[in-house]
């Protein structure tokens, strides 16, 4: 698949945008049950990781260009080109995210307003991303399924990234785990179900591209979701390896799903 750079860019930006939203949600849930200093440590680790993730994604996207020296021209046609808009809003998102990292580090506290602005830019960026794919000659991408799928990927992968980053805290502090448990399950399961309905069924041509690979993808994600419910829902001492397995399977499901998405280009 020679569109590997688009594949990685797409995943990276969607994970980063989802991660920003999840981080805001986690802060809302955790700021009453976790000590400020401890929360700040995890916050700064998270925004830094998300910033690196999105920057690396952007750099990788340059490998797709035939003439990278002209790259700054890419935002010339905001008036009609969804690709122009996507690059513009992704850049704004990354700038705001980097500002968040800096201000968070200087003030020793997560700057939520900046992160909110960044998240808004990110949400618009993902919308532009979905639109640029759905407004092409590839019938498998036409329609609302693409945008819905992208947002669901953002929420699922955002949850994977933030949950894994916060896992040491959640493992140590029972009240912290309690606070995020149900919202996390709710977000992941809703995203998974919506994604399944749109991508696997209603009019999406993606599943039809390769039925067996599509099956593996949905089995992965389903097992991950079920495992997460088992580990999170009742109050139990969960083995940390199983939690890693659940999130790992979720990630693999998304990787396979995105690979299927890009197969019209192969």
């Amino acid at each position, binding site marked *: 698949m020679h569109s590997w750079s688009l594949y990685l860019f797409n995943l990276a930006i969607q994970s980063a945008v989802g991660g920003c939203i999840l981080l805001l949600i986690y802060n809302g849930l955790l700021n009453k049950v976790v000590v400020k200093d401890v929360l700040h440590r995890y916050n700064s680790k998270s925004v830094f990781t998300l910033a690196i993730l999105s920057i690396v994604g952007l750099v990788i996207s340059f490998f797709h*260009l*035939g*003439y990278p020296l002209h790259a700054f021209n890419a*935002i*010339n046609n905001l008036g009609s080109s969804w690709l122009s808009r996507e690059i513009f809003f992704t850049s704004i998102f990354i700038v705001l995210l980097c500002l968040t990292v800096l201000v968070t580090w200087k003030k020793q506290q997560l700057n939520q307003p900046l992160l909110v602005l960044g998240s808004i830019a990110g949400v618009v960026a993902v919308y532009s991303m979905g639109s*640029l794919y759905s407004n*092409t000659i590839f019938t498998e991408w036409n329609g609302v399924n693409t945008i819905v799928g992208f947002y669901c990927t953002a929420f699922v992968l955002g949850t994977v990234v933030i949950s894994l980053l916060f896992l040491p805290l959640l493992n140590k502090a029972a009240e912290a785990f309690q606070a995020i448990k149900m919202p996390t399950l709710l977000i992941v399961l809703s995203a998974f179900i919506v994604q399944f309905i749109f991508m696997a069924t209603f009019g999406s041509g993606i599943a039809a591209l390769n039925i067996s690979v599509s099956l593996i993808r949905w089995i992965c994600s389903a097992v991950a979701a079920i495992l997460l419910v088992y580990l999170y829902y009742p109050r139990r001492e969960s083995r940390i390896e199983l939690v890693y397995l659940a999130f790992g399977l979720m990630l693999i499901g998304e990787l396979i799903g995105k690979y299927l998405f890009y197969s019209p280009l192969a």
Partner: protein
Amino acid sequence: MSVQYGFFFDQTLCSGCHACQVSCNDKNDLEAGRIFRRIIETEGGVFTPQNKAYTHNVYSYFTSLACNHCDNPKCVEACPSGAMHKNPDTGIVSVNQNRCIGCRYCTWACPYGAPQYNEAAGRMSKCDFCADLVAEGEAPACVAACPLQALDYGPIEELRAKYGTVAETKDLPLASITNPNLVIKPHKNAR
């Protein structure tokens, strides 16, 4: 004084000889893989047993397509850098090599497959209606080369007056998508 140039293609005459493609390749120095004028062969029909023999309605025809220099070019709309642009004086759509970033998004937008990636330059290229020849009053290479005179060119209004206004066939994209400046005389099996 502005004019909109276009092509006329007579599908009832085309023999699929590829002279148009070869002359275009020659004029534009195209290497293998870059095709500004594409020829597609369409076959159909069946053999049906009848008495002790067969009868058939088998047919084939060729479609020679370059760029239609559309009124609403999807490639121009999609191009993020503005490199893909429509000349206001001639209506010819071409790629500004000083702006193109080689992202190939135009190839995802054009229903006719006109934009072609130039590996060596890292940028896009396409049929430019032989703008340099046309400026001198000469015909585009493909039009001049066709031995059956199945291709014609000129201001689209003149072509439409002379040949009609059909711009799509059953296996071409709907004309309403991009409003191509193309007039086609469909083969009887292509209507």
